[in-house]
């Protein structure tokens, strides 16, 4: 079965607006989604902005992230199984993250 990567982007400041009750509800939704049979694994990325590496004039260098100018940062990734993009999309459409941010869906070459 082909695997797809979900990259979860959000604006971390948005979470601060939630009440403790809303945070718990949201957390429970994420956890329930993560337990679905087609979810292979999930990883949270550290809350910092990471480093960006590139060569300038042939000299590789690392600079502080983020890579792009947008406020949204990649916060976590999941791997899921699906037979094709349509099914992968369908399995992702009700991900609770979509209440808070965006998800980038990419197929992995097996």
């Amino acid at each position, binding site marked *: 079965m082909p695997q797809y990567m979900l990259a979860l982007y959000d604006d971390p400041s948005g979470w601060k607006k939630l*009440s403790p009750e809303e945070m718990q509800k949201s957390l429970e939704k994420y956890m329930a989604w993560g337990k679905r049979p087609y979810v292979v694994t999930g990883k949270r990325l550290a809350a910092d902005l990471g480093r960006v590496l590139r060569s300038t004039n042939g000299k590789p260098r690392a600079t502080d992230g983020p890579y792009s100018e947008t406020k949204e940062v990649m916060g976590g990734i999941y791997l899921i199984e699906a037979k094709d993009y349509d099914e992968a999309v369908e399995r992702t459409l009700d991900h609770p993250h979509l209440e808070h941010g965006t998800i980038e869906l990419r197929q992995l070459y097996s």
Partner: protein
Amino acid sequence: MTAAELSNAPRGDADRDGDTGVLLEHLFRHQVGRVVAHLARVLGPARLDLAEESMQEAMLRALQTWPYQGIPENPGAWLLRVAHNSAIDSLRRSRFLDQNSGAVLAELTRATSIAPGAPSFEEQLRDDELRMIFMCCHPEIARDARVALSLKIVGGFSVREIASAFLADDAAIAQRLVRAKRQLRERRVTLDLPGAAELDQRLDSALETIYFIFNEGYAAHEGEDLIRRDLCFEALRLGRLLAASSIATPRVHALVAVIALQAARLPARIDEAGDLILLEDQDRARWDQRLIAEGFHHFDLSIAGEQVSEYHVQAAIAATYTQAANLRSIDWPAILDLYDQLLAISGASPVVALNRAVAVAKVHGPAEGLAEIETLRGDPQLRDYYLLLAVRGHLLQELGRPEEAAVCWSAALECRCSEPERRFLRRKLAGI
């Protein structure tokens, strides 16, 4: 209402269901009170904001990590530890370290070495929460501010949730909280438990705040139902915390008894269509038996003292309703007698007087009840109160004056009332 909400939820290891990994209902909200209280005691009440921010940080961290790593063994202790560390980090980062920061940091570092879950630590946390209730309910702070502070800091409600419960806008509640915290600082209110000399006054202020929160939730005005029900159960939780403490007096037990006995009827007040059901028509099978038992337990404990407080009489009224073999056999003369006592204690509260008028009508007939109502109509607090008009309409109908009853119900529809209440009034109007 779920069992988890109604039971005295045990703390510590039982924060989650071991088999399913499901969190206890309202765990985050309830942990806010404990963690903020604990941190505020160690940091000092002047750093209440830092305590709140640290807990916020811990919950955000949970949100980011638990979905991937699973729920920790003891979620409550996890939140406490992370909030704790976050407070230490903030203090260290702070460029404005004042002279006592060093001592606070030492205390914070020492506190981390205490094992969460240990009985002595649990006791300490309960004690901290109790101190925080007393601080938020300090008599020198206006009641509105006490209510907002208690709900935010001890109850873990957000500004938006408090605003929606009180039909205020977010900015007004946020302002109220800022002012309340300034008052706490200016009056140097501490987290010390009240001494014997001031205990009565401080306790009264806390009980009044808790009862107000309950009544706001219980009175079915407009507003979101869910949040209002949460207010009722938060009031019950706060009452239980006081009742379980070493400073519980008979009055505290009386308050918990009223709240539990009244809350027991909550599930029966609204039918499946969301329509209001009057007490006399309620299905008693839908009353919550555990809450009734809890109410009577505290009622028994409340009798110990010499003093009869407003809460004692309110509890006796609620108990009389609950004890009636069926709702047609309510002992109305006893209820009337209790309302007479209540009026004598609480001064002439117009809402109590209105309830008394209902009892008068039950005992002496609708004409006498109506006569009582007429004396209350001029009261500014009741002028636009839908219930006075609804009751007056009901008595007029019983007296065979349907046209006048219809005028009353139409006027009641113009007042502030909930959707179920509105539908109830329309049904009465249609029935004429």
